[in-house]
Structure formats: C-alpha cells, structure tokens
C-alpha cells in the first residue's frame, strides 16, 4: 500500500448566483439574468486556477454547490468546474459532494451528469408542501412538481437527499407546518434542514410586511413550530445535530460540520466565503467587480481577516455551540490555557438552572429548549 501524506482536510463551497426567479424572502446573492451564466463560469474557472496551491496542499473531503440555484445551469458547467479542480487535486478522498437543486430545474439527464461527476448528495428546496404558501413565497414550483423531482432523484440512484423546509412564514399555521413535516417524513429523506424565516430588510418580503400586505410572522407561533418540528422528527429517528439541521444517523452534512468545527474551506464564486490557514475571507458581491478583479489576475476577495488567538476561542465557542454535541471544554482549556468553567461560572450555573445547557465531564451543549435562544446563551459564554 502506498503511504499517504497526512494532509489537512478541506471543504469547497462554490456559489452559483443564478435563479429562475427570486423568492421574496431571499437576500442571498443571485440574479435572474441568465445571459451572464457562460461568462460567470469562465471566470469561476480562472478563480479556481488562482487557488491551485491551496487545492494542492489540502485533502478535499467535501464539495458543495450552493446558490442561487446551481441546478438551473447546464450540467456541463458543473462538470467543467469539477474537471478544473481535478487539475490540481485528484479528489480521491472526497466523502461528500452536494449540489443544491430546485424542483422544476432538473431532469434525468442533468442528474446523470451529477452522478457521473461524483455528486453523492442532493439538497432539494421544498420549503412547504402547501401550494398557496409556495406561491406566496415566489417559489417556482408546487408540491406536485417537487414530488416528481424528488422521485426522479431517487430513481437515478441518489441515496443521500436533504429536503429544505421553512417555518414561521406569514399566515402559516401550526397545522400547515405539521402537514409539511408529516409529508416530508413519509418521503424518508436522509437529511432535513428547517429554517425559521428571518425577514431581511433588503427583501421584497420585508416591503410586503411593511405595507401590511403580508402578516408579520409571530414569534410565539414560530417557536411552537420549532418545538413541534424537533418533537416529530426525533420520534421518526431524525437527530437534531445543529440548530436547523436534522439527519438520520450517519447522514449529518459533513460539509456544514466543516464550518462549525472550523476546518479549512475554500469559497469560490461571487460572494463566497472561505477560511484557509486561520484567515477568513469574503468574495466581492458584484459581477462587475468579480470579472474586473479576476481580469487583473487577482483573487476577487474583498474582506479578509486574520483570526487572532482570542477570536479563535470566540469562534470555537460560537460555532461549536450550534451543534448539539456542543463544545469540548477540556480540549478548549488545554488549547487556550484557560479555565472555561471557572471563567463563566456564574453564567453556567444560571444556564444549567434554566435548563438551557447541559454538561458532562468534558463537554457543554445547548439543550433543545436552549436552541431557540442560542444567541443569548452563546453571548453568555464568550
């Protein structure tokens, strides 16, 4: 057997900023102008070239195509990107390779391409099984189209599928959300992400609420939904492993865990974020900037920050506590030469009293009850 050099792990995030139409709640960087697709991918390939040292140095374990709607573009574009990466990394040790898809943008041919280039996980956006809700959100599909796409994905042979849901939506009742959960459980995906709606100021949704056309989501109902979600999913063998993520055993998203465990990840494409060698960076968010900067043979990065020791600790706690496995304070003590428990003694006692956290000999984690106010809890422990 050949000896392997012990390289560090790397995840790769690739942003595909194109959508058929913009959903009303979305403040991510994506456009509906599809004439830019070809040019964008040309530049994406150039950007990848600039990271050849990084790609060479690390062992790529996960790839994630996110968006936007990565499935909107021709499968060949995705293939080209992978081939380009393969010029610098053999991708032999890849464990998880995900692409986000939306119903109505995929067909058998596209899925076959995905399969052939090594994609082994599909994340499909459903959000709700209620067609009125989907319409209100500006989704491009109804529930029936979702079912078609979902079944097709299974037919082509993907055995790791994640379904996205949303809750706390305008005029969404507990019953409506419960029905969505039930229907998704019946489909038996390996992974479910469920996000509580956050109304971002730059969105159409925000304007509609301000104008009184849509109802402002109710916090109380939102939390009742979250509790119902945790309850129902856990009874169906879905484990809440992160604030918004549930999975069957062994199907936790390895790529997302890279974020929470502060492993290295490369962000490619418009507005992508990366974390390499203790340095965080964010790419530019305008197409023009992206093209121009790459034309100048420079990486299209606009913010970059070296993470100091103190910030490392801050991040480790903040990100670790998102996971239901929590943080290992014994290791943290050793690593940062501190006494975590002693330094937060009062807060920890209070949090334990309120059953917001639990702890054992080496770890502290946020309870299901605490997940709803995790920011408050984290603030007390950083």
């Amino acid at each position, binding site marked *: 057997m050949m000896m392997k050099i012990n390289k560090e792990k790397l995840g790769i995030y690739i942003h595909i900023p194109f959508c058929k139409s913009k959903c009303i709640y979305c403040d991510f960087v994506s456009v509906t102008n599809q004439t830019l697709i070809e040019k964008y991918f040309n530049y994406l390939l150039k950007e990848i070239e600039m990271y050849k040292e990084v790609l060479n140095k690390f062992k790529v374990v996960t790839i994630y195509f996110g968006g936007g709607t990565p499935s909107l573009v021709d499968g060949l574009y995705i293939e080209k990107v992978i081939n380009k990466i393969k010029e610098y990394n053999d991708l032999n040790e890849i464990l998880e390779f995900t692409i986000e898809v939306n119903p109505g943008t995929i067909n058998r041919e596209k899925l076959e391409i995905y399969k052939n280039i090594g994609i082994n996980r599909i994340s499909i956006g459903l959000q709700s099984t209620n067609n009125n809700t989907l319409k209100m959100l500006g989704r491009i599909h109804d529930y029936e189209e979702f079912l078609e796409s979902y079944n097709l994905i299974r037919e082509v042979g993907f055995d790791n599928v994640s379904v996205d849901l949303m809750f706390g939506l305008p005029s969404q009742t507990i019953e409506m959300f419960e029905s969505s959960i039930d229907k998704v459980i019946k489909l038996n995906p390996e992974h479910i992400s469920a996000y509580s709606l956050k109304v971002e100021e730059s969105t159409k949704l925000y304007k509609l609420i301000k104008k009184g056309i849509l109802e402002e989501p109710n916090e109380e109902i939102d939390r009742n939904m979250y509790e119902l979600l945790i309850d129902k999913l856990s009874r169906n063998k879905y484990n809440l492993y992160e604030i918004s993520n549930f999975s069957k055993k062994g199907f936790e998203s390895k790529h997302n865990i890279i974020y929470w465990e502060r492993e290295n990840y490369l962000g490619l494409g418009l507005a992508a974020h990366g974390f390499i060698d203790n340095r965080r960076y964010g790419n530019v968010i305008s197409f023009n900037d992206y093209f121009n900067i790459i034309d100048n043979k420079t990486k299209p990065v606009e913010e970059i920050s070296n993470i100091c020791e103190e910030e490392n600790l801050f991040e480790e706690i903040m990100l670790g506590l998102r996971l239901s496995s929590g943080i290992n304070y014994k290791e943290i003590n050793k690593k940062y030469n501190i006494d975590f428990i002693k330094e937060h003694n009062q807060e920890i006692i209070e949090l334990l009293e309120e059953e917001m956290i639990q702890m054992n000999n080496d770890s502290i984690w946020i309870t299901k009850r605490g997940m709803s106010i*995790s*920011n408050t809890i984290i603030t007390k422990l950083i």
Partner: protein
Amino acid sequence: MVSERQSRIRNFSIIAHIDHGKSTLADRLIETTGQLTKREMEEQILDTMELERERGITIKLQTTRLKYIAKDGIEYTLNLIDTPGHVDFTYEVSRSLAACEGAVLVVDASQGVEAQTMANVHLADEVGLEIVPVLNKIDLPSARPDEIIQEIEDDLSILAEDAPRISAKEGINIEDVLEAIVEKVPAPSGDENKPLKALIFDSIYNSYTGAIAYVRVFDGQVKKGDKIKMMSNEVEYEVTEVGIHAPYQKKVDVLKAGEVGYVTASIKNVKDCNVGDTITNAENPTEKPMHGYKKVTPMVYCGIYPLGDQKVDDIRDALEKLQLNDGSLVYEAETSVALGYGFRCGFLGLLHLEIIQERMIREFNLDIISTSPSVIYNVVLNNGEKIKVQNPSNLPDLTLINYMEEPIVRADIMVLKEYVGNVMALCEERRGTMLDMNYLDEKKMMLNYELPLNEVIYDFFDTLKSITKGYGSLDYELLEYRESDLVKIDILINKEKIDAFSMILHKSSAVYRGRRICKKLQETIPKHMFAIPIQAAIGSNVIARENVKAMRKDVTSKCYGGDITRKKKLLEKQKKGKKRMQKFGKVDVPQNAFLEVLKYDDENK
C-alpha cells in the same frame, strides 16, 4: 470713575427666551465685527459643546471680545458674555450677568415676551444691568414689531421705541445692535490703580495649564507673574498667563479694571477655582470680595455608580473636573447594596442631571449608571432629632419617624390662554395649590402655583411642554419645607428589592407612580431566559406589578455559505450591549433605566 480706556469698553450679555435667536445673534455679531472670516464662522460658534448643539441650549458659558468702530469714529471693545438658557441654569445666568453692565434683550417679533424673557429680565434688573431691547426675526411674515414693542414696554417696563428691528438669521440691521450697545450700555467703572478685584464667572479645566478662570476685572489689574489669592479659601498662586477670547484664546500682557478675559495660574486643584469667587492680589489685597452672587443649592439628587469594570476613582475624577466648570454640581461618596461604591450627586434639576450624566458618558467615556433622582426631605424622628434625607434608601424605619417634610416651590407658569385648563389639571394632579392667575395680555396668562418639588423634578416640564404645544414655560424657586404624608416605594425586580430604585413619594401619587415605573421597567428591561416579575411595594404591600415575558426566540437560524463573519459581528454587538447593563441578581438592567422610568411618556397622557 471711568478712564478713557474704560470708556471704550462695553461688557454685555444677550438674554432671550429659548428659540428667540440668542445664539444666532451672537454669531452675527462676531461675523459683523470681523472677528472671524465667514469661512471660519461655524454655525452658533458660542455653543461649542456637542451636547449643547444637539439640544440647542447653552450650558457652558463662552465669552468673546469684539472690536467695533462705532459711528462716532471710536473703536470700542465689546465683551460678549454668553449665558445659558434653561430654567435649571439660573445660577449660571446670574454669574455672567454680574460680570456685565448691560444686557441685550432679544425678543422674537412675532412671539413677544415669554416667561423666560421675564425671568431673565428680572435677573438682569437685580444686578442693575442696562437692558437694550432688540426685536428679532423681523423678516418673518408673522412679525408684529409695533405690538411687541408695546408689549415690552407694558409688561417689562422697558423703553423699546428705538429698539433695533433685526433679523439675526438674515443679517438685517446688525449694526444697529452694536450701536445700541455702545450708546446704552454704560462703560465699566472701577479703578485700575486699586487692589485687584476680579470675579470668576466661569472656569474650565485644561490638563496643560490647570484650571482656567474666566474673569471680569472690577478693580486693579492682573498680569503674568502676579501673586494672586482666591478670597474664599485664601489659597495663593502665581499667574502664568492672562488673555482674552477673540473668540479663541489669545495671550495679552495685562487685564485691567473693566476688562474681561482669562487667568491661568497652575491651579492644580480644581476645587480652588470656584465660580463666584473673587481673585485679588496676594500682596495687596482688596478688602471685600464681590457680592451679589447667589450661592445655589442643588435641588435634585441621584446616585452615580460605575458600571461593569469602570473604576470608581475615574468617576470621582470626572466629577471633580465637571465641578470646576459647574459650581452647582455637588457630590459625595456613598454606597448602595445593589450598586456598590459610588457618589450621591446634587443637581439644579433633572435636565442638569441628564446633561452631567451624558457628559460623563461622552466626554469622559465612563460606563455609569444613575439611580432614581430624589429631592431632599426633612425627617423628624420620634426622639425629636431632625435629619435630611437625599437618598431614599437612607430613610429610617417608619416606626422611628414622627413626621416628614418635603420642599415646596413657587412655580411661575406662563401659558397661552387656551391651554390654561390643561395646565391647571396638571398642577392639580401634581398636588399644586394655585396662588394667583393673571392675564399678561389678551392671549397670555401667568399662573402661580405652590408645588411640591418632587412633583416638579421628574417629568413636569416635559409634560407641560407637551400639553401646551410647547408654549408653556416654567420658572420655580424654593419656598419652604412643609409637613407631608410621604411614603417610600421600593421596586422589586425578580423578587429582589433594588435599593437604587427606591423613591419617596406622596401617598396619593404612590400607586400611580408605582404603576408607571413598573410599566416603564417592563418596556426597558430586555427579555431574559426566564420571566421577570417587576413589583412596586410600600413596605410589604405590593401596589403595582408587571411581567417581562421570557425570551422565546434569539437564534441565527441559517449561517449562509460559511459566512461566519456576519454572525460574529452580530454576537459581538450583542455582547457589547450586555456590558452596558447593570446586573441585579440574575437580571440585566440597562444603564439608563433609572432615568428612563421617570421621563415623560406620551402614552400616559
């Protein structure tokens, strides 16, 4: 005795009702006399403090020397001494007026004589100033100069026939004001050969030169190297510099009788440069210090305590420095069960309190928390002993108390006729007794009330403004102490009594106030992990109660595409917010909560 030198000096202030254009006129005078070029001219240059600008009122005194060649061909030196313009600062007004021979009275040509106009004229009369009336805002379509002149003559008994009709904003007829000053304001008398007698009408602290005294020289002269003495405490110094403001600080060789300027003398201890004190020559002292200064007594007290890691010594330093510029601020060390070591501070009123608090936060960068404001109560114990209580938590056990007295003020409220009903209802609600009510003219009325001070200090002024659409004005002075049925209400947060929130109130308003405080605290205290009961109680009897609901949601559901930085910033901000809180047991209370609960709130009316 007026020498030729003195005959060319005029020392004057500008007095006006708020918003009648005092600062604008000051700007214009500086500009017209060419003291500053237009480019240097900043809007309202005399109001230098950021805080003053925001609130549009002058707190710190500023002074400036203007050069003006009058129509008689002679060059005059005009010393403009600015005065603050709020009911809380009558003392500061009186000090600067005493340094002048005359006052320019600015009256809005459409608004006419207002409560503050009268109050200020009264103060100026008391120190014997010549009053030079000026009609401002003559350019406004609503201006009615002839009527207002009549009003000035009738209401104030000041001849106003020849009053300059100006627009400070538009720069119309500004020269007329300068001429009137030269003509009407008497030149300063005093003998430059007599022993030095100089009045400190303001002072500021400077870390390089020590305290800087702003002075008006009445007799004698002062120059660098002179040995001087502060007459209140006999402490001596050697003068390091004398100068004038033009309007920036400018060194001169000597300040002589009749002149206005500044003196530095390496005065290290800020307490040795008291506003109101007289400076004389140590080797050749004058016999008597200046008289006519009202020594003011603080009317409102509150505790100021360090928040978080703030050191109590830093607060002491800040108070010491602020006191240098502000003779009406007093403080002494105290302790609180809830807040630890801090200071009990005395202020002229609630606005004064807020300004000092904000200056401590902004200028001195301090993290502080202040307790519920209180007035001073006289408490007569069963054994006949009489004590003064300015901190409600120091009130002796009720069983030991024979009776209590509270301060009563005489309040003069000027108001337009149509709002009299509202004002009377307000005064009624605040336990007022009407003394008198007069028509000032066809539209305006003057109401005189006796009011308990503790009903006035909290939100009375704001409420008055609100119910009179801004047209009401208030002036008050302490009348006497009177026996009263007072109770102490305690505030319990999460079942814990917070001594810093305790208040002494009249029995009849305790329930109303208690309810309001609980309601306000409910709005002010952020949601916690658990529900927080807030109660107001007299002894063990709960009179009001509210509940801060437990927090249900505070979570970042999605961290998009590994963008950790955004989430980090969010949490850092949240963490920082925490630091501005004071922890009482398990509950975080915002630093401004104590003041906030007493403020006027529109919903209540």
